[in-house]
Every structure is written in C-alpha cells, then in structure tokens.
C-alpha cells in the first residue's frame, strides 16, 4: 500500500491521461528511433530490408508504450513480483528450448518474433527492486539481511544470463540493479565493499586464465585481450575494434554524407546493423551526427530524472530512475565499446540497433515511465484534474 493510492485525488482519467503523458519524452524517443531508421536504410546500401521491419516494430512499440502508460502505476507495482518470477521462468526455459544465435542461447522463437528473456529481465528486475524498496520501510534499507534480499534478486537472473553466455546483459543487470539499490538509499559502505570485491574478482578472472578453475570462456578472454590491445591482431580478433575506430574517425566533423560511408557499405564493419550501428552514424554524419544522438539520449535521461524528482511515490520514482539508468547503461556501454573504451560485449544501441526484443522491451519500459508520469499525485491546481 503506497502513499500513492491514498493521494490519487487528482489523477487524470480516461482520455485526459493521453494529454497528461510526457510528450516531450515521446518526441525524443521518436526522434532517436528516426535516426535509427535513416542509418539502417543507409547501412543496407539504400535498401529498406532493415529499416522497414524496424519501423513496424517501433510502431508496435509505440502501441505498447501507450497501453502501458494508460495502466495505473500501482498496477505495475502489484504485478512486479509476478513479472519478475515469470521472466525468471522464461530465462530458465531458454536453457532448454532456446535457439542459438551468435554462439549463445538467447531467445525463444514465438513464431512472430524471437523473444529474448534476458532483455525482458532488464525491466522486470527494475520493477521488482522498486517494488521491494517500496515495500521495505526506509529505516531497514541498509540492514544486512534486507540488503541481501535484493542482492539475491539481482544475482539469480544474472547467473542464468551468464550461462547463456551473455556477458553484456549480465553487466547491465548487475549495474542496473545496483543503481536501483543505490537510489533506494542503501548505505555507501556496501557499494564500496562491492566495488572493492569486483576489482578483486577481475583480478581473479585474469589470474585464473589457463588454469583448471578458469572463470570465463576463452572467447571472453580474447575479447578482453583485443580490447586492451586491438592493434596486435588487426585481422583477427582485434578487427572489429580497429575497423570500428577507422569508421568513426574517418567521419571527421561532418561525416562522409548519407549513404557515403565506405566502411559499412563495403562490409568492413562487423554487425553493422546491430551492435556497431553507431559507427556508421558517426562515419556518415560525423562528430555532429554522433553528438546529436548522444544529446538526444542524455535528454531522454534528463526528462526521466526530472519527471522522477516530481514524484512523491517511492515506487514510481525508483522505477523511473531505474529505467533511466538501465537505458543509460545501454547506450553508454555500446558507445564505449565501439569507441574502444570498453571490451566488445555485445550490447545493442537502444532504439537504433536493428532488433525486435530490445525495441519492444524498451518501449514497454518507457510506457511504465509514462504511467508513473501520468499517475503521479498532483498538488492542488496542478494541471486540470478530475475528482475521483
């Protein structure tokens, strides 16, 4: 029972909800997706084969967002635990019936689309943690037993995702979940301890290489190697990073122009329509184009944060901020990766990379953000509100 339910005297009803949505955020999202269509069209060599399905998905995603926005935020809170449980079951299911793509078990073929439960988990986890902290009295937040619970909530799906194996999503889940705990007010000391522990773990992973107790797969070690020194193996494992940097750098200030990017058109770029799509944007539209996309992303975050700060409800604020952080991690990891700041871990660029699951899940998440925005309790005189 949250504060919200007792203070919803002024919440928009019916079609009023549509007007009460955060339209600036919708426009920003649409603009970002629009950039995605342009780049996908270009990357396909002036062909609609990727841009068109991506548009349908975005249309479907917009529908999902609107529907989610209309649903009261307390409904989302109430189904959080269920959503989390269901996603866990799906994650377990891909272990057994999942299809393999890119060397890892990741999706379930639903016929009309391929569902990646690990994508869904990014949202479910945020919901679950927000609901947990909504339920937990703030005074107990930093007590060890109550810190352990969300840690388990985070680590169970992380373990399953790591088994696929999908290092990129695992990192996103851990950092995203951690960010929600941080927002909820868990004591600094825990984070300091975990960061110290993580440093220790990284050392252990690197030390375990080649021994019987090797902690991660060989290909993941190789990605680390090539990240640290891509030039040593320009035609082998370092090829992706080297070519990606060449594409980015050769764009210069203003880029080579629409459809003029040679690196992508001539297939020097790997995964040019998915994980490495940012390089084509940067190659064809230059520093200005790349910066524009980054600004759009940061504006989306900013609008989420501003929206969250006006919310009096703990769940709504945590969900909005948690989703904003998850979204941030998405593009931050992807951009770092293609610019050679982070190892290649296989994280797509949100709203832009070609892909169904990620797009739909992201739009669902923004729908929940919109729902929190629409259903926030308002002070007297704020907006045109109806009595309940």
């Amino acid at each position, binding site marked *: *029972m*949250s*504060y919200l339910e*007792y203070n919803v005297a002024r919440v928009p009803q019916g079609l009023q909800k549509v007007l009460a949505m955060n339209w600036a955020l919708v426009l920003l999202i649409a603009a970002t997706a629009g950039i995605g269509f342009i780049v996908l069209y270009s990357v396909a060599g002036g062909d609609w084969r990727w841009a068109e399905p991506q548009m349908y998905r975005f249309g479907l995603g917009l529908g999902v967002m609107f529907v989610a926005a209309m649903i009261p935020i307390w409904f989302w809170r109430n189904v959080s635990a269920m959503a989390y449980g269901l996603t866990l079951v799906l994650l377990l299911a891909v272990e057994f019936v999942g299809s393999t793509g890119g060397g890892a078990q990741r999706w379930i073929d639903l016929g009309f689309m391929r569902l990646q439960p690990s994508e869904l988990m990014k949202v479910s986890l945020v919901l679950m943690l927000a609901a947990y902290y909504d339920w937990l*009295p*703030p*005074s107990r937040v930093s007590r060890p037993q109550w810190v352990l619970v969300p840690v388990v909530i985070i680590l169970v799906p992380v373990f399953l995702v790591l088994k696929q194996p999908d290092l990129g999503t695992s990192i996103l889940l851990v950092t995203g979940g951690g*960010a929600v705990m*941080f*927002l*909820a*007010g868990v004591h600094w000391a825990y984070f300091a301890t975990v960061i110290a522990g993580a440093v220790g773990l990284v050392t252990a992973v690197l030390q375990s290489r080649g021994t019987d107790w090797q902690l991660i797969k060989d290909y993941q070690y190789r990605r680390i190697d090539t990240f640290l020194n891509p030039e040593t193996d320009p035609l082998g494992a370092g090829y992706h990073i080297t*070519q990606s*940097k*060449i*594409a*980015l*750098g*050769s*764009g*210069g*200030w203003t880029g080579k122009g629409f459809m003029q990017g*040679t*690196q992508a*058109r*001539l*297939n*020097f770029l790997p995964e040019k329509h998915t994980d490495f799509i940012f390089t084509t944007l*940067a*190659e064809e539209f*230059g*520093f200005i184009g*790349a*910066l524009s996309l*980054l600004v759009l*992303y*940061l504006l989306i*975050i*900013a609008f989420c*944060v501003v929206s*969250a*700060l006006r919310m*009096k409800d*703990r769940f709504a*604020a*945590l969900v909005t*901020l948690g989703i904003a*952080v998850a979204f*941030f991690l998405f593009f*931050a990891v992807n*951009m*770092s990766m293609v*610019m*050679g*700041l982070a190892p290649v871990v296989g994280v797509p660029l949100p709203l832009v990379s070609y892909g169904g699951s990620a797009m739909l899940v992201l739009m669902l998440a923004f729908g929940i953000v919109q729902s929190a925005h629409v259903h926030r309790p308002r002070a007297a005189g704020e907006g045109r509100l109806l009595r309940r």
Partner: protein
Amino acid sequence: MKRNAEEQRLSTRHITRRALILGGAQAAFGALLVGRMNHLQVDQADEFLLLAEENRIKVRLLAPARGVIYDRHGRILAGNEQIYRVSMIREDADDVDEVVTHLRGLVRLDEDTLQRALREMDRRPHQAVTIADRLSWEELSTIAVNVPSLPGVTPEVGLSRVYPLGRDYAHVIGYVGRVSDRDLENEEDRDPLLQTPQFQIGKIGAERSLEHVLRGKAGSRRVEQNAAGRIMRELGRTPGQSGKDVQLTIDAGLQNFTQARLGLESASTVVMDVRNGDVLAAVSSPSYDPNLFVTGISVPDYAELRDNDHRPLHNKIVQGLYPPGSTFKMITLLAALEAGEVSPSETFYCPGHLTVSNRRFHCWKRGGHGWVDAAKSLRESCDVYYYELAQKAGIDRISEMARRLGLGAAHPLEMTSVSEGLVPDRDWKRTRRGEEWVVGDSLNASIGQGFVLASPLQLAVMTARLASGLSISPRLVRSVDGQARPSGVNGPLGINRSLLDLVRDGMYQVNNSRGGTARGSRFDMAGMKWAGKTGTSQVRNITAAERARGVFRNEDLPWNRRDHALYVGYAPYDDPRYAISVVVEHGGGGSKAAAPIARDVMLYALSGGIPPLDAYPRGQRGQAEALLSSLNLNPELGQGPGSSEA
C-alpha cells in the same frame, strides 16, 4: 498500511539526493563519451580517413605486353599469344566440388594445375585463382556459355610468351618463366609487377639480359574493394607501357639452316658479319624447345635434357670452352712476326717432334713436315714450327696477341653466362696454380693446347678481326624500340697490314692449296674463295704407350674421349663479309668434322638460301645434294630474304 508521512518525505528526499548524484555521474560519463568522440573524429580524423581509404581502395596492376623480339628481317622470334584460362573465386562458388565436377564435364582439366589451384583457393578464398590454363577458344566458349551454372568461375584472356621458331632460339633468346622466389629476392628488381599472378620473367638468354627493356611498365587500375576482397567498381585506370621491341642481328633463315646442319651433334657455330660485328647466327646443338619452359616443363622432360651427355641445356656458344687447337696458330704466328723474332720466309725443320727441356713435343704428323715456312705452317698446320716460334716469341707476346684478337675476355653480348675463356700467362699460372711458367707451357699454348680455352663466340670474333683488321666486337641486338645500337667496330686492330695479309694468305692456302688441311671443303666458284683454319683439340693426353702402339685413331675411342673438331674461316677471301667458327665436340678432326659444316653454313650466308650445288667441287656435289636435301628446314624461312641486306 498507511505510511508515516514523515518517513515518506525523508525517503523522497533521499531518492532525490541520490538521483542527482547518479544523474551527475551519468552526465560525467556522457562528457567522457563526447571527449572520446572528439578525440577520434576531430583530432585523429585525417589519420582514420587515410586508413579508411586504404581499406577500400586497392590498386591492381595491369601487366604490360612484353616486347617482341625480331630477327634482322623482322621475323618474330619471341612474341606474345593470347591464351585463354579459367579462374575461380572460392568465395563465390557455393560448392567448389560441384562446380569443379561440372567444369570437368565441359573441358579437360589438368589435374596438377587443378590440385594446386584448390590448395591456393583454401588459402585465398576471395581471390581469383587460375584453375585451367591454355584452353582452346572452343573450350573457353563452352565455359563462357555455361557461366550461369558455374558460380565463381570466370573465363579470362591473357598474354603468354611464345617462341614460334622454337628450338632455333633456345640458347640465344632463352625463355621466360614464372617468377621464382629467387627472382623476388633480387634486390635490384623491386618491380611490384613480379607479384602479379601469372607474370613471366626472363630466365636465361636475351630474355633475361634484356629483361629491363622487354618488360615495360605496369599500368594500374584503382578499384574499390569490399571487405571480402570483391571488386565493387573501378575508380580509375592508368595505362601501362608495353615492353620495348627488340631486333636482333640474327638472320632467322641462316640460324635455322645452321641449327639443322649441326643436327644432333654436340656442337656450336657462330657466324658474324666482319664489317660490323653483327652475329648472324649463333647456334648451340643439340637444342630444345624453349616453349616447354614457359608453361613449366615436366619432370621427365627436364630430366631427359639434364642427363643427356650432349648437354642440350648448355649454351655452348658462350659457355662452351675448348682448347682452340690449331685455330690458335694465327695468333702465335702474328705474335712472333710482329715481335720480329722470325721472318715470314724463315724456315724450320719438322722431323715430327721437337725436344725441349728433355721433353719430347710431337707434331700431329708423325713423319714430320720437313722444311716449313709461315705459309706452309698454316696450310699444313705444322706443330713443330709453332714450338720453335713459341720459344722465340715467349708466352707474354702470345697472350697479348690473343687478347687483342678477342680471346680471354667476356664480350658483352646479351646472353647469360658469357664466359671469359682463358688466355694464360705467367701471372695467371703463379696465382692460380702456384707454379712457375715453364717453356713447355708456352709450347702447348702456341698450338692452342694446354691451358688455353676459348668459346665458339671468341673464335668467331678472332676470325672476324683477322679478316677485317678491325677490332670488332660481336653485336646481337641491332635495335631497341627502333633505336639502332652502336655497331661492333672499335677501330683498327693496329697490326701491320702485311703481316695480316700473310696470315690471310696462309688461311687461304688451308682451304684452297694442295696439302691444305681444309682443301676438301673449298668452294668451286669463279671469283669466290674463302679462307680458314682447322683445329683439332685433344681432350686428354695421349700416353707414350698409346703413341707407340699407334692406337689413337679417334674412331677407335669412345665418343666422349675423342678430340674436338674446330674450324674457323671467313669469306669471301678478297673482300671479307662473314666470319665463322665451328666447334664439334668429340667430332674427331677439324678438317673432317668441322670444316664441311662451316662451308655449308658459309655458302648459305653468301647465297642467301640453300647453297647452290655448283659451289661445291664437282666430286662432292652428289654427296652435298643428299646432305642438303635431308636437312629438316623450316619451309617458312628457306625462301625468305637473304642475309645480304645489312
């Protein structure tokens, strides 16, 4: 449960504070990303742009057509033919085995080439690899028609070297072949053309020594290539420059006749124009078909050439070194006459041998020649006369005269492995043998035995110099790209004309006078006589026991222990045009084995075609006719223009 309002307020403030911290961290990371973008796209833009261009733009070399080699009358000796081949890109062939099977159904495929190509395709799946070479036009058409069902297969047209006159030119022109690792290691030749597939480079002979002239310059094609190496479009083309055409001094008809006349003998003949040094024919026998080497000779074929005791791979024209035997006697005579140690009319008595330093030196004629003067010494080739001269003139004068006449030096001819030969002197023996020169060495040298070694080319140069009185150098290349090369005349020899006339008269008597060693090979033509000198050089020492038994008739010895037969000559006697040298390895006596060949070749050169029978002495015409008609001549060359055109 209704929340405590105070608690709610506190928690909201908490979230706000942490949200701002996290927001700040995000903004900071955003700034980091911008910084990185700026670094890559603004600071390093030029560098990466260059790398991107290098990625996409590839320069493909276009092989220039190799220069054509002509004979002095414009007949093609080495040309280029269009060849048809089929290449395949593994990446584009869905199922290589299936495509190859289909291809095999259409044309014959050489298994060796195919297997090599398949291995190469494994290594370079994106590049075109030749899977069948030298197809006929029909085969190429068959493949071209079926291309839609042969993914990855491309019919191609290329150029390859061809030697239309085959074996006549194996030693003069040599051949081209695939670029070898050794060719690539050559520091002086860093031409990127060598790296292009199917490129042909001169291996031996003129093809090799004129490589820089014949090769030409590569053209280039700038293409845009995708990451898989597939060409997307052509960006530009720079035309190359064909190799320069070369005209040789060789007369194809004479060359063909000479080659046929030498037959299967292990022999060599050089014909030179004494007025300008032009080499009109240079033949080493037996020969082989250089075209075999262009395509890559088979192992058994190569083994057969390599193991043949007549050494067909050996270019005897410039590499074959022989003791010149009696053909050296002109040199000894000139050296002694010029030094004034003897007068032409001075006579020496030849009892068949001469004892010097307790060693007995024999004349070839066991009974001796009696009293011998200069003319008779040449005519009858008396060895004792020259033993006497050697003691008077000394080795230094003889060596000096030999060098002036072109021996002991590698003439700069456009062939490979041109030998220096050997003109011995005191210094040479001291440094190379660690022994002092003894008078016996001079005696041996005086009759062209002992240490003296000369190649057929050097003997021809010597004869040309004797005949013309000019310091003639051989010239093989007449013009390059239409630009004439300088003639081989380097001014007068500086030998007193009366002495030269004396030697020439001696050589005339060899061919024409009673008792002359080559009288059997005289001309029987009014106003046309020739001069020459026979030689017979021992390849082993005759033991005293053999000499006593009298068993050293060449016919009784195994082939490889018989004497070399030599002959040098020039014609016409009164107005010299052509000089010739003939060496027949293990041929026996020069007068029997070498002089008749020289006569036939010389008559061909003089008459510009098959020698007329009436040039032969009456009694020999039947034999000559039989021999000449049995020669396997190239009919296209026999009726060609004569060599009389300079």
